[in-house]
């Protein structure tokens, strides 16, 4: 036991959990916490310009490093601002800890109108966090931190929040610091494993569908071993991109979600539809299993709520992805489960058909995406904003290294990509990090250019500019009689970047990126590359085209029939 302030206890507890950086904004109710971090070796704070960036950066940091990202904000409005980053992290099951201040203890819940007061502020983020705790004394802080980290390291990793009133941050008392909580990886019941092995050996058209849970479990190598040991090809969800190299001969590639593409010439959907056995690994199967009840679904998921939700014909395997695959492998080898023809030729044939059909569908985005793919180094981390190029990247950008593809999941929120890219770069300072974003999304968090320059966070940002919320404008034009207030008044992005001390470049044509991106990466500085695309007519993103058949996307004469 040692006599510590709450701020000191927090800093020391975070360091014990392996935390090296906190993304935050200092403020009146968290002075004690800020001082604690300032004075503790081995941990530092990066101050952002808006609280939204604290959690976005923490998320980017977590996704690339495999560690837990930590953000810190003042109470009330600080939490509201930080909540947007938590929604993205929640949608991608990313472990982000939000440390939030509170109003003075005796005023909590009384509605006296204190600084930054929000009554029941936990409720602001309760739907996007898996665990919340308020520490009312310094001695509770080691427990709060240890438990928050344990929560994010076990089960489905999702954000958590700790609230600390200002008195707690500065009071001193005897505090018992804690060691990191031991983590046991869950392995499914042996009978279920045997059942799964029998099903796999009997199947003729098996398929592995890998989601983001593979990355969260650091199970990438195990997944590849599973595919190779069983000669079963792999398809990934958007969240699972990179868990197996796209160049691997057993990798079909990614689909945004299995059922979303059924209305197109989509080879991946049809391959999955024809499977007689689907091994889901760490995927929520957002819109179901195209193969349906005629296939056996072996569902490997750490979240027991997901196990039997998708279909009745399921062999649930409740467990950690890596531990479950490692438990299956010797059983599969013993059963000669790999004794089947290699599917590599079929995978190669499918990939060629995908490329053929999609070129016709995706002009003019496709050549630009392909050029970006050929230009950006293979090991680079790319954070894809919510834009046309971001949507196409979900299925068609080739990713060959784990934890190098980042998107916003079903959150699909504008504004996430630039600060998330900054957080990713903090996690991997020696690796190129590129943010691909539209002008609409970039301006949500453009002030973080200041953060990038201050802390030498050298992200290259490819900023596609059409001076419009282009997708919205097109849809309003097509279906609602005309666009309305979607045009954007933008700064000169080159001058804008330079005004912060960053580097600004401008492409005359998108294909100029072929020369500009390598030049930008060499500079080792924050760079904005302004890419005007006002002349391009961009069709509706085909990958969410099915959403446009929803009646609520067009004007109606009466009420919409409920189904």
């Amino acid at each position, binding site marked *: 036991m040692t006599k510590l302030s709450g701020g000191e206890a927090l800093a020391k507890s975070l360091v014990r959990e392996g935390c090296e950086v906190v993304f935050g904004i200092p403020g009146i109710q968290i002075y004690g916490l800020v001082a604690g971090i300032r004075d503790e070796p081995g941990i530092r704070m990066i101050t952002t310009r808006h609280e939204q960036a604290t959690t976005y950066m923490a998320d980017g940091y977590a996704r690339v490093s495999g560690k837990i990202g930590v953000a810190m904000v003042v109470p009330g409005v600080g939490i509201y601002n930080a909540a947007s980053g938590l929604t993205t992290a929640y949608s991608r099951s990313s472990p982000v800890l939000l440390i939030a201040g509170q109003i003075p203890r005796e005023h909590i819940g009384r509605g006296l109108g204190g600084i930054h007061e929000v009554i029941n502020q936990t409720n602001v983020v309760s739907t996007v966090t898996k665990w919340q705790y308020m520490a009312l004394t310094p001695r509770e802080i080691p427990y709060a931190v240890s438990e928050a980290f344990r929560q994010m390291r076990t089960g489905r990793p999702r954000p958590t929040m700790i609230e600390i009133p200002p008195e707690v941050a500065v009071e001193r008392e005897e505090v018992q610091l804690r060691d990191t909580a031991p983590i046991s990886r869950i392995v499914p019941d042996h009978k279920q494993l045997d059942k799964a092995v029998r099903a796999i050996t009997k199947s003729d058209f098996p398929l592995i569908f890998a989601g983001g849970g593979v990355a969260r479990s650091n199970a990438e190598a195990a997944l590849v071993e599973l595919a190779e040991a069983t000669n079963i090809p792999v398809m990934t969800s958007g969240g699972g991109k990179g868990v197996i190299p796209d160049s691997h001969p057993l990798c079909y590639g990614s689909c945004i979600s299995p059922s979303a593409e059924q209305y197109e010439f989509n080879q991946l959907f049809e*391959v999955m539809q024809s499977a007689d056995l689907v091994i889901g690994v760490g995927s929520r199967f957002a819109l179901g299993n195209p193969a349906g009840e005629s296939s056996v679904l072996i569902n490997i998921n750490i979240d027991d709520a997901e196990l039997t939700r998708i279909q009745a014909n399921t062999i649930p395997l409740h467990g950690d992805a890596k531990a479950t695959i490692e438990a299956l492998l010797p059983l599969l080898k013993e059963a000669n489960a790999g004794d089947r023809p290699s599917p590599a030729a079929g995978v190669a044939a*499918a990939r060629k058909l995908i490329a053929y059909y999609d070129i016709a569908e995706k002009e003019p985005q496709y050549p630009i995406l392909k050029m970006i793919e050929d230009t950006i180094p293979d090991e680079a981390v790319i954070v894809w904003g919510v834009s046309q190029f971001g949507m196409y990247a979900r299925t068609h950008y080739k990713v060959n290294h784990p934890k190098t593809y980042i998107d916003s999941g079903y959150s699909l929120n504008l504004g996430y990509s630039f600060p998330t890219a900054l957080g990713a770069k903090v996690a991997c300072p020696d690796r190129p990090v590129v943010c691909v974003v539209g002008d609409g999304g970039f301006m949500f968090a453009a002030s973080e250019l200041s953060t990038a320059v201050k802390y030498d966070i050298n992200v290259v940002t490819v900023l596609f500019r059409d001076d419009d919320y282009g997708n919205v404008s097109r849809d309003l034009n097509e279906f609602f009689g005309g666009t309305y207030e979607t045009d954007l008044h933008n700064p000169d992005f080159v001058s804008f970047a330079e005004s912060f001390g960053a580097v600004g470049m401008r492409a005359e044509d998108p294909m100029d990126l072929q020369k500009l991106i390598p030049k930008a990466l060499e500079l080792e500085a924050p760079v904005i590359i302004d890419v005007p695309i006002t002349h391009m007519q961009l069709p509706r993103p085909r990958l969410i085209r099915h959403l446009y058949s929803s009646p609520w996307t067009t004007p109606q004469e009466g009420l919409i029939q409920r189904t």
Partner: protein
Amino acid sequence: MNTGAKAVMNTTVQRKNKTVIIEVEGQVDGTNSRKLYSTIQTSVKHHDKIVILDLKKLKYISSAGLRVILLIARTLQNQKTQLAACSLTNEIQKIFTISGFHQLLKVYNTREQALAALQG
């Protein structure tokens, strides 16, 4: 094109001695490729020497269908049965060429040519 509805596929099987000719008509995609597989599986006996897929009336085949044909090809290869396709339409020829399938499977212009080549 996969609209979610089940694609229509019909097969006709003819057998003469140890040669099996399977005519595939319609479309083969994710909704019915396993049906094609089980048809071929049940139609071909272990002692058959030649299997010809006559694709004259096939309008479309997706990766799911190609996957089936590949698996059949490997299975037949193990039992030393020859497999070939014939009478491809322009559309199917394009799919075979784009996918590289024309290098994985023997393809002939007509049924007669296929028979002559494999029986000879």
